[in-house]
């Protein structure tokens, strides 16, 4: 199905340049745009209400404005019948009672009372803690993997895998930032799942490079890498396709709450596949990886047998 002699490694500079530009662009985008942080991290109150008929957002906004909730943002959530109301942590108002006050306000003059679908209130301190835990999770998983790959393979692989993975994460987050989607705990979970997936993909290629280093001794590092990427190509693409299939299903059918989760992984799997083909191996090559790094100490005399 797939041609098996594409010169990925020979043309590595094109891919590396492309990725470097993409990464820088993403970092700039994140720096400029930032993230639309959800209340999980900022603290605040979120109320989702449902109506039988499509809701008039302007009327809702005006009502909330008149009742003194001027900083409330009101928007549809999924359908026109569902409304999401967000409030920042407020000064001078007890945060626990806020949700009941808001509900009272919007139901006061409404023809149809809103049915509460969910209420979330996160105190500022809890938000800080969640953000800190999330950051630590990212940090520790990166460190654990660096160590594991360095132990199982070699440090150059380890660095290559991490660079390829960070590339995927940064580019995905860059897109996420540009699209202005909300970053919450589920999205963070998706980012971590993406790290796992992207590494998984990269390791399969590395594994084959390691195997071929030992098997094909008369070829150059570059050639061996190219062969390895090519023979694992159909597997890389097949697996990505099956994962993409379930993600598409989640994206379209999983509902609003899981939407951003699916988006992160859709982008992530796409870039993860790209990077394990185009980025992971060239980076290891740039770091000066050579077959000698992975040689099993040869028994005395064994070398002689291979001579013509």
């Amino acid at each position, binding site marked *: 199905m797939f041609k098996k002699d594409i010169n990925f490694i020979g043309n590595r500079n094109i891919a590396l340049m492309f990725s470097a530009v993409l990464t820088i662009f993403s970092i700039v985008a994140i720096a400029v745009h930032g993230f639309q942080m959800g209340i999980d991290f900022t603290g605040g109150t979120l109320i989702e209400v449902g109506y039988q008929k499509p809701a008039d957002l302007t009327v809702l906004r005006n009502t909330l404005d008149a009742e003194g909730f001027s900083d409330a943002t009101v928007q549809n959530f999924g359908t026109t019948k569902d409304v999401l109301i967000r409030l920042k942590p407020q000064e001078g108002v007890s945060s626990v009672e806020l949700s009941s006050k808001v509900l009272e306000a919007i139901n006061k003059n409404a023809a149809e009372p809103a049915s509460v679908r969910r*209420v979330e209130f996160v105190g500022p301190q809890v938000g800080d803690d969640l953000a800190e835990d999330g950051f630590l999770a990212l940090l520790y998983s990166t460190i654990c993997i660096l160590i594991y790959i360095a132990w199982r393979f070699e440090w150059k692989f380890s660095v290559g895998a991490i660079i390829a993975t960070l590339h995927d994460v940064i580019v995905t987050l860059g897109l996420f930032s540009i699209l202005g989607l909300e970053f919450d705990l589920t999205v963070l*979970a998706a980012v*971590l799942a993406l790290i796992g997936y992207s590494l*998984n993909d990269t390791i399969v290629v590395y594994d084959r490079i390691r195997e071929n280093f030992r098997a094909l001794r008369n070829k150059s590092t570059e050639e061996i890498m190219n062969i390895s990427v090519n023979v694992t190509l159909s597997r890389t693409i097949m697996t990505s396709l099956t994962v993409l299939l*379930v993600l598409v299903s*989640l994206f379209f059918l999983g509902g609003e709450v899981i939407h951003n989760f699916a988006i992160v992984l859709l982008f992530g799997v796409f870039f993860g596949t790209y990077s394990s083909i185009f980025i992971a191996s060239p980076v290891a090559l740039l770091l000066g990886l050579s077959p000698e790094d992975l040689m099993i100490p040869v028994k005395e005399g064994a070398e002689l047998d291979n001579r013509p």
Partner: protein
Amino acid sequence: MQNHFPLWKNLLVLIIFAVGIIYALPNLYGDDPSVQVSSTHPTKLVQEQANQIETVIKTAGFNIKAFEFKDGHILARFNSADDQLKVADLLRDKMSDDYNIALNLAPTTPAWLRSLGADAMYLGLDLRGGVHFLLEVDMDAAVKQAEDRYNDDVRLALRNEKLRYQSVSKDDGFIKVKLNSADDKPALLKVLGKDFRALEVTEPKEQDQVWLKLSEKEVRDIKKFAVAQNMTTLRNRVNELGVAEPVIQQQGENRIMVQLPGVQDTNRAKEILGTTATLEYRLVDVEHDVQKAVEGHVPVGSRLYTERNGNPILLDRRVIVTGDQIVDSSSGVDQDGRPSVNISLNGVGAAKMGKLTQANIGKPMAVVFIEYKVETKLVNGQKVRHKQKVEKVINVATIQGVFSHRFQTTGLDSPQEARNLSLLLRAGALAAPVDIVEERTVGPSLGQDNIDKGMLSFMVGFALVVLFMAVYYRLFGMIANFALAFNVVIVVAILSMLQATLTLPGIAGIILTVGMSVDANVLIFERIKEELKNGNTPQSAIFIGYEKAFATILDSHFTNLVVAVVLFAYGTGSVKGFAVTLIIGILSSMFTAITGTRMVINWIYGNRRVEKLSI
């Protein structure tokens, strides 16, 4: 004999498959919306009460699907959630508050499965609806209370030892004792060394003074105790609220997580969980003039209070009994139809009350209602906790006769207030004030929506992968599909056995596992294809394909596992649910995709001449 499993290996796979099916099975049976009735008192319900409740429901015209009475609990199952809610309201209305009425979703798992310990997965709040609270215990307040207590105890000890002192007061984080004469200092230090080991003693340059401070260990113990005590109280209160399957857990050093599945009335839940209400009984000071006290001349032995109607009243400074001496209470109405709370005291309280009422027949006694209300406000971005102690005299009555153990208190505004007060008195007081720092409420309609959407995207995703694999890898693809189904069964079975919480992200995790777990099979199959191309016979291609792919699968899945474990360690709530399904999915997929498919492939191709593989 290259592709042949020994008998034990075949049996092992089949047994795991069978066990997986049995433990996954309960999830196919649904839930019945039901109402659970139990006693609010330590006693259990009896058959007679059960019959009475059944009659009440039936006479109101509701269809009961099943009525079970077991271990002093009643479980009435209904056909619709609508009936369930109406019956719960009906019972709350008709029955006294001796009955605890809770909504529940009772699984319809058949008895033979239950006897094997098989249960359906435990659904998280985002799937079943309910409230999640994170409460923060005010540690500073707990420590301050302890300091106050030590302050009083030291003063009392000085008096008992007949050591004269100028003052014992809190200042600068110290309890400062000023003696009348420095000569008494050795005696004081002796008392402190004997009875107050938890206090660290500092001797300042003033010879007549000793400064005391809580030791670090004592502070730690106080904090630990405050959280433990609060958890007990919260558990009692939650039980009183009538919630089936509540979860109460400590989180971190000073936070307590409370999850109340099925609860919709969050305001009442917040009210009950957060308040610190108690009663005190005091004699009314009839000897002094109230008017003078209002002007500022409050007599030494008395304190000025306000009655409900706003009138000032002077009460004796000494408390007769306090809330912690109350062992049981229930609400009801007195003979005039006013809401009342019936109170039972413990031995100490009863003795005190008996002695006092005997000596003071004909004098008025007051009931003081004390409530701590905590509000957290943001001022200039800083969290400021505002604690208010609300004290009001709810009732003044003349002591008509001697009473001790049991008596009645009236003067409450509404039956609802009487009910809440009796509930709070029964459940005990919080050792330290708590503050709600996180709340997540999910309505029942959203919960069902989430389940439906999760199921739908799972089925569609699964079908797409199955189709794709079958088309691309033909027979081998079908075998991989069998392994995939097997994998889902095992994941569900393990989740059910562990009773781990299934959340919406958890379902997403299962779906993701479906997409990723075929990876192992793709690796193996691609390897087999390669070996065939290299000129190997079909039999040895299968053998070498599995052999070589195994190392790769191990390495690649392990890195994935590391990330999932870190996610589990640092995730909270629903994210943890995602990590759990991911971990289980990765592990079980290694078994099903490697051993499971190999078994079937061996059955089909093993032990015979094979010309061509359907791959």
